């Protein structure tokens, strides 16, 4: 099968890699580049465990071909924390017990982080709608909503 050379920037670091046309972005991130934070849960774009940011927008990296991301800026969960310090959102997830097994958490964090950039003062309903594309089988979502709401409150106070 033919192969393609592509270039992606992940969390600020540029990578050159060679992929088959059918290689999914999530596979390239996980297996070629070692960013294993994004998880594969469904392969249909339904569960959101593979959510990353591409050029500022959340995408489900299991429904995207790596070649489509040639030249893109990708941000994964590994890029959220700054030098090992948890972000406010990550801290609040911990404080509000917004994760149990943690498998959905990377995608959930990327979705919530992106959402909070767009909506600084969301209602609980808006938060629920924002994370609708990220399935969690452990928490029942309430603590995740609490964590995102608390993050918005804290960031609002800091502004």
């Amino acid at each position, binding site marked *: 099968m033919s192969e393609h050379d592509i270039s992606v920037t992940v969390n600020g670091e540029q990578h050159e890699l060679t992929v088959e046309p059918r290689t999914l972005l999530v596979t390239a991130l996980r297996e070629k580049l070692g960013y294993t934070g994004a998880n594969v849960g469904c392969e249909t774009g339904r569960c959101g465990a593979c959510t990353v940011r591409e050029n500022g927008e959340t995408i489900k990296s299991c429904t995207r071909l790596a070649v489509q991301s040639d030249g893109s800026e990708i941000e994964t969960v590994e890029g959220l924390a700054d030098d090992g310090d948890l972000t406010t959102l990550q801290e609040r997830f911990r404080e509000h017990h917004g994760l149990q097994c943690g498998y959905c958490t990377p995608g959930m964090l990327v979705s919530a982080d992106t959402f909070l950039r767009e909506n600084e003062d969301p209602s609980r309903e808006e938060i629920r709608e924002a994370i609708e594309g990220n399935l969690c089988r452990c928490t*029942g979502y309430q603590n995740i909503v609490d964590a995102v709401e608390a993050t918005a409150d804290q960031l609002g106070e800091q502004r």
Partner: protein
Amino acid sequence: MSDADERDSSDDSSSGAFGAAIERGEDVPLLTGDGEYTGDISLPGTTHLAIRRSDHAHARIESVDTSDAAAVDGVVAVFTGEDVVESGVPNTIPTAWDLPGLVQPQYRMLATDKVRHEGTAVAAVVAETAHAARDALELISIEYEPLEHVTDPVEAVERDVPPVHDEAEDNVAFDFELGDGDATDEAFADADRVASVDLRQPRIIPNAMEPRAALADWEETTGKLRLWMTSQNPHLHRMLLSAGTLGLPENEIQVIAPEVGGGFGSKIYHYPDEAVTAWCSMQLGRPVKWQATRSESYLTDCHGRDHVTTGEIALDDDGTIRGVRVETHAGLGAQLSQFGTATPSYLYATILSGQYAIPAIHCRVVGAFTNTTPVDAYRGAGRAEGIYVIERLVDVGARELGMDPAELRRRNLIQPDEFPFETAAALVYDSGEYERAMDAALEHVDYDELRERQDELREEDRYLGIGVANFVESAGLSPSGLAGDLGAQAGGWESSIVRFDSTGSVTVLAGTADQGQGHRTTYAQIAAEELGLSVDDVTVVEGDTDRIPQGMGTYGSRSASVGGGSIARGAREVREKARRIAAHQLEASVDDIEFDDGEFRVAGAPDRSLHIRTIAHEAYLGHDLPEGMDPGLEETNFYDPENFTYPFGTHVAVVEVEPETGEIEIERYVAVDDCGEIINPMIVEGQVHGGIAQGIGAALYEGAAYDDDGHLETRRMDEYAVPHSTQLPEFETDNTVTPSPHNPIGVKGVGESATIAATPTVVSAVVDALEPFDVDHLDMPITPESVWRATEADR
């Protein structure tokens, strides 16, 4: 010494760790993407396994041609069921629970003669890349002779169909009875009224977010197999790989469960796939990795439930329940999975008394083979099915009597002074204050006012429904002797090691295995409490059979009560050894040594003291120990509880149903749970939230379906409704605390409670809303369509 005696510790070791809402230590790597799941691990030279599965529900395998597949670039090997047989390994996936008259057909790693459900593993491809393995998979040519299939557990035994297994011509794996049939017949004959319900509990697909995965590494030079896998119980997997499938000595197998992304039962069982992964590595001498896709998970992870039931309740006019009679056909799927036989028998029939003093109970369960994915324990296993039946029966009984369903429940509750209470369904409940929890739940929603509002709204053609469900569950299956008498092929104990090192920090090695429950935090809280330390002084290790010698794993809400009980006992043994060292070094009598906040003090001489960390150092120095005492400060504990524990509670749901559209809105959901003593309220609440979510999922959204050809229709996440964030309400939770006298730390367990409670609660609420339409019962999942159809005649 009984467990109850052990609970009376005279020491005030309280570090404040037990009972505190301490944030989870395990969260940091999970939040940064550093958490390591099986799929994240790779070894140099790793090959990739893909498994060819049957697309027939039932067929004879005529031939398997692997030559085209073997010729694909990058393919290392292609194996069939015959290759596994020829390798001489035991090749048997056993059931872990025997029942009288049980038919146990052979369950092989790869099928050789027939496929018995869609998704049966038939052949295996190992290749240099996952892509190559998948390419080759398509080129395996299998000729089948299709056979007539059956997917329904009643049809399987009542219709004339080709048997799933030749050994069971009528497709009956077991015919199980519990309780006193004659006494129950008499109770029904004498009662004023009888009410009944026919119901189905559909198959639930567990849908742990992380699909199953395995990475096997056979080291030819040492003859050692290392297997990383998504496991709830690595030690049981080690045992089953040894004795069941691979035939290696147990001590040459290391099973490692790294981070596990949810289980809910589905990662307890020994499946063909992980064994095949290990076997392939043994054939090739190279690491082999297998990662299930989501659709493979739908086809192969054991499903839950699948009951078809007729239930009857006998009542007197004053609301006294005289008896309960239940007959159930339980679908077992095509093969007997580990607890596939225990779940619909001993875990189901025994809980049918619920929270009520019912003098006569009889239950018959016919376990049926069907051409479907094997069925096994899913969150709430057996107890969920049983509580659903009794709570539906109480509701239809209340309607028969014209009595408020909460009132009927209250009149039959077992009272606090009646414990230990022996039910007519063969259990001895440990402790309970059922009415206290029920009152708390009803007060939360202001029940009487709600009933008034319901009447008012009905005047406006609006349909409010109030569902109340009481539950009790049997958690922490034990003791081993009793479990063995009932047919268990494994023990019910748990094991742990509590180990100080010479610098005074503590490592707890636990035989359970976490899949998100937060063991590393709660176990540290237990040990810290007993040893007068901070949780930060304690490191908990789980999920690696080479580091933790023995264990049973995490399922059946056993970790806090059996695993935590073992850790508490081990920590107390460590503390007592430390006390003896302290007495010796302080030149005092052991009886005069008090322990408080990590410090051993001589009674009446507070300045003479030694901290337990100092003692640990002394224990490893070994220079000045009591005569005859061995150095070191660690204890291995095996804890085999004297009985189950029995968590309980009451849940209430308030719904509004729109008959024109069938839409159901959950207005409020209130859960009052009693799981005994609470180690970490934040984690308990999290378990309750998740449990409610899965219970509501079962009631309103989830359910596997097979089409007429025996194909699974719900095989992708867009065909099977795992509830998402906008489909679930806000939960209002509260606890009462009734310690278990059967447990060293008074805990009962909480992992499954809310799932058990939520399904009857929500179904009851919807049915209650539809009372004006004469709807007595609706089967799960209650969809807008089913509501619309049920109310159609009245519109």
